């Protein structure tokens, strides 16, 4: 009943921002390291799909996915500027100190998917949490069957991690299909919602022995789930990460409670079968 100060579950550990990469409008990737190597070491055991609580002192704390795969050597966040704390993160310069605690959440049970085909379906910045799984899967390419990525954004300018997608595809090993809702002058690719990619000529999506990962805004999620179910996916073979307002990340503040689950503890990864049962709007 008497924890030592080290046991404070809310205590952020200090980290230093190393470098910043502009991704798309309002979205940047922040590479960082803990000041204390022991903290860094402890953190590196994270799983794809887990998240961390990021503190910008004086501005607040917010949850952010871990887009790196544990197979990579660096840790970073990719964050969209939307409010007080995310704005403050965007203001930081390399060398500045902020706080991180975690990793939290269940993550994707990647070992369970060994021997299966993987279908990644992402919309907008929904690609951030899936990046970790994709890189992980490619690092263990021999363990998985067919790997496909279906990714869409509103406009070409809003496609995230584009250089990476090209790089990965060139390296081989998976199919990558991109689409935008509205093309601009330079866009030669597909236009239409993400689901329309499934019906593109030449595309075959296996449904047997396949796990589909779906992440994106609520509307996209609803339509894609419908498509996948029609294609014959079982509700247990569709997995997603839910997003909720979060304050603690450890099951105490109550904000992320949905149905009978806490997104921060029981999620953020859920199967569609579980999501249906939670009985609330996504």
């Amino acid at each position, binding site marked *: 009943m008497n924890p030592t100060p080290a046991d404070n*579950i809310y205590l952020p550990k200090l980290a230093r921002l190393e470098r910043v990469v502009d991704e798309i409008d309002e979205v940047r990737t922040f590479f960082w390291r803990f000041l204390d190597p022991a903290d860094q070491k402890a953190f590196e055991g994270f799983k794809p799909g887990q998240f961390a609580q990021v503190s910008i002192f004086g501005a607040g704390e917010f949850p952010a996915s871990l887009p790196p795969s544990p197979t990579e050597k660096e840790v970073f966040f990719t964050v969209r500027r939307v409010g007080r704390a995310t704005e403050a993160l965007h203001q930081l310069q390399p060398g*500045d100190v902020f706080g991180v605690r975690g990793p939290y959440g269940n993550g994707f049970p990647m070992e369970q998917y060994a021997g299966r085909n993987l279908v990644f379906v992402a919309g907008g910045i929904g690609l951030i949490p899936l990046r970790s799984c994709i890189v992980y899967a490619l690092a263990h390419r021999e363990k998985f069957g067919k790997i496909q990525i279906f990714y869409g954004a509103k406009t070409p300018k809003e496609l995230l991690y584009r250089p990476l997608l090209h790089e990965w595809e060139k390296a081989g090993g998976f199919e990558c299909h991109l689409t935008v809702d509205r093309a601009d002058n330079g866009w030669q690719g597909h236009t239409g919602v993400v689901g329309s990619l499934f019906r593109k000529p030449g595309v075959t999506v296996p449904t047997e022995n396949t796990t589909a990962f779906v992440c994106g805004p609520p509307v996209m999620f609803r339509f894609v789930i419908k498509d996948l179910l029609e294609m014959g996916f079982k509700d247990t073979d569709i997995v997603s990460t839910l997003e909720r307002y979060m304050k*603690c990340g450890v099951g105490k503040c*109550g904000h992320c409670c949905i149905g009978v689950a806490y997104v921060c503890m029981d999620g953020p990864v859920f199967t569609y079968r579980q999501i249906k049962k939670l009985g*609330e709007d996504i």
Partner: protein
Amino acid sequence: MRARLIASDDVIKIVDVLRRDHEVMAPFYGRGRDTYFDTVTDENRDRIQLHIPNPYYPPKRYVLPHIEQMFRIRKADGSYEVQSTYDEKKRAIFGIRSCDVAGIHHLDRFYLGRDFKDPYYARRRAHLFLVNVVCTDPQVDINDECYCLCTDTGPAAKAHFDLQLMDIGHGEYLAVAGSAAGESLFDQPFFRKATPEHVERRRKILSEVRHNFKATTGWFSATVRYISQEKVLEKTWAEIGSRCLECGGCTYVCPACTCFTVTDRPTGPNEFERVRLWDACALYGFTRMAGGHNPRKAVHDRRNRRFFRKLAHYFIQRELSMACVGCGRCAEVCHGDVGMPSTIEMIRRATTEYLAHESNAR
């Protein structure tokens, strides 16, 4: 039962003993019916009440303050010093009601249970001494909305207190120890041995008191079942929700509500504090996410949430105790009459009609 006898006139001496090494909180009268818990001082000591309507503002705040500092953050040399700030003060609550004792026990399970332990709560709790006073006076102790009988939390707490006092008439109180710390008080000269006759008197009074409850919502467990089996119609939830004024009052007075929000604020040049404060699922912004999407928009969704969370089997199993202890405060403060007892009543009526309709249709 480790029980002792104490004269009514001596009861306050327990406060004096506790004050030697505790900050002692006790109930007082304000204006009119208003009552509140406050720190006992030499000046107000004689105004402590043994029989009094339970204060609306729950003693929960001595383990989970309305606003609490978590860290002090100091910017220095391009880095930060983050220091957890713990409250290690020894406190005693004198005159805590049985429902509120159950409330604290619920918070114990919630904040100290499962994977993560809340360090702020743990410290406050470890230094807290509880003197429960049993509700026996139907005129003042027991409000119209009290329904601890249905939640099985009162009028006499069965456990989780350090010392329990009960007025057994004839100018005498029976004291029961609930912990070693409580029992050690029995060394004080003003405690006398109790006889089986006293214990029998206690039992008799308790069984009489049980008849003095006005709001006996005997449908509590049935409602838990209805909610858990999803038998409550959307229409009924909407009806309950439409009466809610979204003031959040019900959760602020609730001894079993646990939700909080966290925010940073400046306390000086290059100094900040991170604080947490009570928050409520009844409030619009509770689930609002960045980007403006709010998955729980309709007011009846949030109402639904509160009752669901408090009464669904799943939560009871998970938190190991029910998140309603029958204090009736939410009913007392609600302007829309959707406190727990009337909500249970509404759900029961609607569900009975629905079930009758269903069996006729068969």
